[in-house]
């Protein structure tokens, strides 16, 4: 128990000031590694201030002084008990973080793929059974005309529809698709229901478009149109879905002995790595969609566009499958 509060403050204040100074230094230069004597001193100061805080409990009417000590102890506690390394932006580790996170949660990606395929099958089946349903399943003006008419129009047009707006179109595609990927991830917090719905609906649109164009005998146009950007865009949305399912897995915690907070802590870095990686892919996909995908035969032969898309898909698979393997 503190008998003389004034003397207590007089004696301890220099240590509080010293701890404040050390913590301020860590705040401004958190990447600087501390030497062993510095770490020992920090630990000593932390323990001393902790003891002061405990002693101050006998003086419950010292809210400001208690607040000062609580602030110091809490900040020092965060520095001393934190075992996760601070973020250090190194290009190599940033590059590797994405594919490594992807591979660590391959099951979630497979599930995202499966849900999308189921959606595709549903969309395909619905349009083949009832062609009128495409107005409901894919309510986009550009897809409402018959595939044959659209292909004829695209191949015969002399005008560049996107002349003067290609970059703007590209920017809109990038931002919209990144929003979709982020939303697919964020929806994981609804126990994964939102993510599953989004992936399924994405699949339904793909399946419906596929059924419409392939059924209409326009397979070459469809693949030439979709593959250059779709070979990156669709996997990127699946990656967003993968992140959402990882989040949902951490929330539900099937078979994990860890508490919920620890489960979230475990996956937080991977979620960010995957979403950031997907966003980078979607920037590329946006550029390709605006500058390549919208140009058809005879401007760009379908075989060339399809080959380009397949090459992209292989490159992406190789990047995700092999980069940063240990």
């Amino acid at each position: 128990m503190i008998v003389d509060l004034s003397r207590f403050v007089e004696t301890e204040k220099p240590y509080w000031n010293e701890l404040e100074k050390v913590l301020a230094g860590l705040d401004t230069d958190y990447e600087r590694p501390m030497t062993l004597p510095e770490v020992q001193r920090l630990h000593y100061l932390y323990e001393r201030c902790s003891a002061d805080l405990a002693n101050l409990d006998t003086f419950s009417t010292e809210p400001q002084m208690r607040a000062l000590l609580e602030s110091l102890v809490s900040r020092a506690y965060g520095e001393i008990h934190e075992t996760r390394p601070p973020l250090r932006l190194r290009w190599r580790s940033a590059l590797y973080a994405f594919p490594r996170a992807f591979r660590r949660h391959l099951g979630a990606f497979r599930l995202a793929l499966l849900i999308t395929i189921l959606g595709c099958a549903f969309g395909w089946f619905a349009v083949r059974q009832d062609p009128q349903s495409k107005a409901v399943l894919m309510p986009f003006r550009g897809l409402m005309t018959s595939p044959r008419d659209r292909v004829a129009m695209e191949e015969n047009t002399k005008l560049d529809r996107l002349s003067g707006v290609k970059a703007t179109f590209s920017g809109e595609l990038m931002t919209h698709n990144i929003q979709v990927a982020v939303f697919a991830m964020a929806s994981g917090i609804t126990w994964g229901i939102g993510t599953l719905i989004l992936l399924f609906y994405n699949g339904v649109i793909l399946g419906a478009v596929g059924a419409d164009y392939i059924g209409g005998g326009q397979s070459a146009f469809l693949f030439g149109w979709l593959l250059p950007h779709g070979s990156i865009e669709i996997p990127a949305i699946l990656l967003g879905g993968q992140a959402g399912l990882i989040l949902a897995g951490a929330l539900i915690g099937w078979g994990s002995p860890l508490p919920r907070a620890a489960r979230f802590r475990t996956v937080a870095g991977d979620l960010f790595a995957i979403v950031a990686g997907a966003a980078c892919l979607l920037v590329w996909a946006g550029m390709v969609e605006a500058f390549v995908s919208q140009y058809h035969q005879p401007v760009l032969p379908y075989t060339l566009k399809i080959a380009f898309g397949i090459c992209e898909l292989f490159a992406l698979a190789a990047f995700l499958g092999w980069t940063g393997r240990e």
Partner: protein
Amino acid sequence: MTGATSSSLRIATPEGVIFSYRLATPVSRGLAWTLDAFVIAGTSYLLSRLTAIAGIVSIDFANFLSTVLFFVVSIAYGIVLEWRWRGQTLGKRIFGLRVIDVHGLRLQFSQIALRNLLRPVDSLPLFYLAGGLAAFWTSSGQRLGDLAANTVVAHETESEVPDLEPIAPAKYNSLLAYPRLAARLRSVADPEAVAFAIRAVTQRDRYAPSGRVELFREIADYFRSLAPFPAEALDGLTDEQFVRTVLRVIYKP
């Protein structure tokens, strides 16, 4: 070990010390967010004016820059500022709020990114309704993004000792002649009551005379009930003077 009530988050360290954070209320968070929204809108507007200069070369390119920069600012604003300012955006800084780790540990970049990336779900269907409902249901007032990132929003700790000179100037203090009673007063007085007394003294001129007399009588009665000072120690002290003397005993023994 962590525990939370509706208003505070208490963290017990392995050293056996407990410290607490006062959790932010939905109102203060809402105000901070509103201010941030204005900052984002203002920054985006300024950037769009700047990017218009690129229209000299290409209007298409200027529109591209405007679209992308608005998106980048709206996503990166919270992430970058909370990372650089250790859990604060401009709005949070002005309203004295800070994002902290739910276990009191150092805030990680991935936590900041995650809580900000989950905003689209929190804001569903309108005006952060989902996030607000989550904050209502969780004991630490966490929105969905906070839940996933293991963060809470707390009031910044005020760490300055109040300046008592204007409200309780140092002069002869009759209560200090009774050190045991003075020590008891310091030990058992409720910090919130002390803070209330400081506010009452600081803002005394705002009260009507009759209300002021009533207020200080109630505060003085509370302090008298804690430590029964003898009559000679209180002789000649009005209720307000007694409260000022008590504050002096508490802060400057």
